[in-house]
C-alpha cells in the first residue's frame, strides 16, 4: 500500500512540475524573449538576415495578422496567405519555426515591443555587433582551436566538435548529434546570418546548452572563419570520413577480438568432441 501512495505522490509532483515549468518563459520580458528566440534570424533596423528586418513591421501589417502569424507561421503559409508565402520565398524557403512560449499574450507583448523599438533611433537589436572585417589566417587557426576545444570557450560552453562535424574536420569527423556545418553558410544565408545565429542560437538544444554560456564576439569571428573555410572546401572530405568511421570501427572490433583470442589462447575448449570427431587424433 505504502508503495502505491508513493507512486501517486511522484505522479502528482510530476504533473505540477510539468504545469509550472513553462511559466518562466511565458512571464519573460519581451526583450529577453527576443534576444533568445528571434535575434538569430531577425534584426530591428539592421537589415535582413535569414528573416526580414522587423523595423516598422507594425506599419507593414496589422496587429491581428501579426499575432496570428507569429504564433504559428507554418499554418499561415500552408493556409495560402499571400504575404506569408512571399515571406517564405524571400527567406529562400526557410519557414519560421513555431517558438515555444509564443502564446497570444506573448505575441501581443512582442508586437508592442517591436512597435516601441522601431520608433527608437537605434534599437539594441540593430545588429552589427559582429565586425565586418575580412577574416584572416590567424582567425582560422583560432577558430580551429575553439571548434576542437583545444582552446576553451570563455564562458565555458562545450566545444562545437562535440556535436557538429564539418568537411574540414579530419579523422573520424566530429559529433553527429547536431547537423553537419559544412554548408551552413548557404543554408542560413551568409556570414551575417551565421554570426547572428552564434550570438543567440535559436534551436531548443543549442539554447539549453548555451543559455548560461553565450559566445563572445571575439570567439564568433574565428568560428565564422572556420565555417567559411569549410564552405570553400566543400563536403567531399566529409563523405570519406563516414566510410573511414565504419572501416575503423570494424577494424578495431576485429583487432580487439584477435587480441582477446590471443590473450586467452590457453583457455579451455571442449575435449571429448574434438577427440571423437577427429580434431585431436594423433596428437599423442
Amino acid at each position: 500500500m505504502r508503495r502505491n501512495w508513493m507512486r501517486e505522490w511522484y505522479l502528482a509532483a510530476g504533473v505540477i512540475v510539468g504545469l509550472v515549468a513553462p511559466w518562466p518563459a511565458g512571464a519573460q520580458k519581451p526583450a529577453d524573449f527576443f534576444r533568445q528566440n528571434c535575434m538569430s534570424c531577425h534584426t530591428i533596423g539592421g537589415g535582413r538576415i535569414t528573416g526580414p528586418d522587423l523595423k516598422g513591421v507594425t506599419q507593414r501589417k496589422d496587429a491581428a495578422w501579426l499575432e496570428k502569424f507569429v504564433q504559428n507561421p507554418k499554418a499561415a503559409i500552408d493556409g495560402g496567405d499571400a504575404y506569408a508565402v512571399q515571406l517564405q520565398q524571400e527567406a529562400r524557403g526557410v519557414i519560421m519555426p513555431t517558438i515555444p512560449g509564443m502564446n497570444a499574450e506573448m505575441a501581443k507583448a512582442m508586437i508592442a515591443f517591436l512597435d516601441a523599438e522601431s520608433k527608437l533611433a537605434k534599437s539594441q537589436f540593430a545588429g552589427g555587433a559582429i565586425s565586418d572585417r575580412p577574416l584572416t589566417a590567424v582567425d582560422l587557426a583560432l577558430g580551429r582551436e575553439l571548434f576542437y576545444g583545444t582552446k576553451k570557450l570563455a564562458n565555458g560552453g562545450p566545444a562545437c566538435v562535440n556535436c557538429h562535424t564539418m568537411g574540414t574536420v579530419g579523422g573520424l569527423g566530429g559529433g553527429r548529434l547536431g547537423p553537419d556545418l559544412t554548408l551552413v553558410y548557404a543554408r542560413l544565408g551568409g556570414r551575417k546570418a551565421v554570426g547572428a545565429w552564434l550570438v543567440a542560437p535559436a534551436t531548443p538544444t543549442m539554447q539549453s546548452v548555451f543559455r548560461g554560456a553565450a559566445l563572445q564576439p571575439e570567439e564568433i569571428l574565428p568560428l565564422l572563419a572556420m565555417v567559411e573555410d569549410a564552405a570553400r572546401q566543400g563536403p567531399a572530405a566529409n563523405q570519406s570520413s563516414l566510410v573511414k568511421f565504419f572501416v575503423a570501427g570494424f577494424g578495431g572490433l576485429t583487432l580487439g577480438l584477435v587480441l582477446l583470442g590471443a590473450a586467452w589462447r590457453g583457455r579451455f575448449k571442449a575435449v571429448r568432441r574434438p577427440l571423437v570427431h577427429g580434431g585431436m587424433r594423433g596428437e599423442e
Partner: protein
Amino acid sequence: MNVRSQISMVFHLDKCIGCHTCSIACKNIWTDRKGTEYMWWNNVETKPGTGFPTRWEDQDKYHGGWQAKDGKLELKSTSKAKTVFNIYHNPSMPTMDDYYEPWTYDYQHLFNAPEGPDQPTARPISMVTGELINIESGPNWDDDLGGSPIYAANDPNLKGLSAEQQAQLQAVERLVFFYFPRICNHCLNPGCVAACPSGALYKRGEDGIVLVDQTRCRGWRACVAACPYKKVFYNWSTGKSEKCILCFPRIETGQAPACFHSCVGRIRYLGVLLYDASRIEEMAGKPDEELVEAHRSLILDPNDPEVIAAARANGIHDSVIETAQKSPVYQFVKEWKIALPPHIEFRTMPMLFYVPPMSPVMSNRTDGKIEHVSEDLFHDIDEARVPMQFLANLFGAGHESKVRYALRKQKAVRWYRRALTVGDVTMETAERMLREADCTKEEAEAIYKLTSLCTFDDRFVIPPAHREEALQMLDGVFEHKQAAGFGFISGPQRGM
C-alpha cells in the same frame, strides 16, 4: 611435528573385476537427486582409456592441481589475482559434453504407444533438457576398451611409450586392460580447498575428509577446475558444488563407506594414517622423481612413542592411535610399499593408494598359433602386456622404480605361495625371488593374507568417530550444546 590423523584408502587393482557395483552403490545413496544426475563420486575406468570426464588426466587442458615454481606451490587454474578476473567465468571448466549429458528413457512409450507395425521403443531423453537426444557418450563410454582406437589411443598415460609399445597395446588378441576405480582422494594438499573463493571447502580436522559446506558454497566452481582428479562436481539444481564425502555418516557409526562395503572383488581397504602436517608444503614441492618417497615420508609410524606423544598432544584420541596401529593402509603403503598414489605429479598428495595390477605375459601370433614370450606361469614383469612406463605414468610420476618395486614384490609373493601350496617351483627359487624383491617370508605371508584371505574387519579398520572431541577442536562444547538442539533443516538451494 604436527601429527594429524587421516582416514586413508587402498584399492588393490589386481583384484578389481570392473563390475561398477561401487559406482551404483554410491549413486543410489548420494547422487540420485536432481542436478546430480551426471555426477559419479565413484566411477570405474578402463585403462588404457580416457576416463570421466574425458581425458581428465590431461592438465594442459583442464589446468587442475599444483605446479612447483622454485619450490613454491601454485595452483594451475587460479590464483588470488585470477580469482578476481575469472570469478564469474571460470575458464578451465569441463563442459557438459566432457562429462556426458545424462539421460533416461521414454519408458511410458512402451506401454502407451499406439498400435503399429513395429515394436515400440523407449527412446533416450535428456535429463537436463527433457528433450529426445542422441546419446554420444556416457560416464564409462570407453568401458572394456569400447571405442579404443579413439579413447584408449588417447590415454594421456601413453606418454613416453614407443610407437611399437602403443601398437602392441592395441593389437587384437594381445590387447590388455585393467580397471581403475576412482573416488575423491581426500588429499593432504587439496587443490579444491585452496581454490575456493568462499572458503566453503574444508578438510575435517579429525579424519581428513574433504567436504563442501553447502551453506557457504556460492557456486563459483573454482574447486571443479582446481581438482586435478575432477572429483568435485557442480550441482546445477542447487547451484552448489558437491563431492564424495567418504560416507562420513556411515564412518561415524563404524560402517565402511558404501562403495567399500559393496565391493565385490574386495579390493578396497580403509584405515587411519598418522601424518606430519608441518612438512606437507615442503614435500609437495619436491621434484617429480622424489615425490612418491616424499609423500610416503609424511606418513608416520603409529608405533613410534614420539609420534604417539605428539599425536596425543594434538588431541588425537588413544582409540584413534590404536586403530592407526592396526591400519591395513599403513601396511600396504608404508611397510610393504606396494601401494602407490595416483598421479602424484599433480602434487595434491592424494590419500587413496593403488596396488598396481599384474598383467598377462606378452604373446606373438605366428601362423595362426599363439606363442607366449615367456613360458613361466609368473613371467618377468618387464614382459607384462601393460608396459611398465604406462603404470609409471599413472603411479610414479613417470618414474618406474617405485612401480617396479611394487610389482616385483607381488610377483615374489606369488612364487612363494606357489612353492608352498603347489610345489611345482622350488622353495629355493622362491626365496631368492623374495630376497630380490626386498621381502621376508613373514612379510610375504602377511601380504598374501591381507590380499587373499582378508575378512571385513581386516579390510576396514574404522576409527571411533569421537564427534565430541572433533567439536572441541573448533568450538566450546557447552556453547555448541546451546546452539545445536532443535532447529530447522533446509536443503541447499540457490541464492543467499
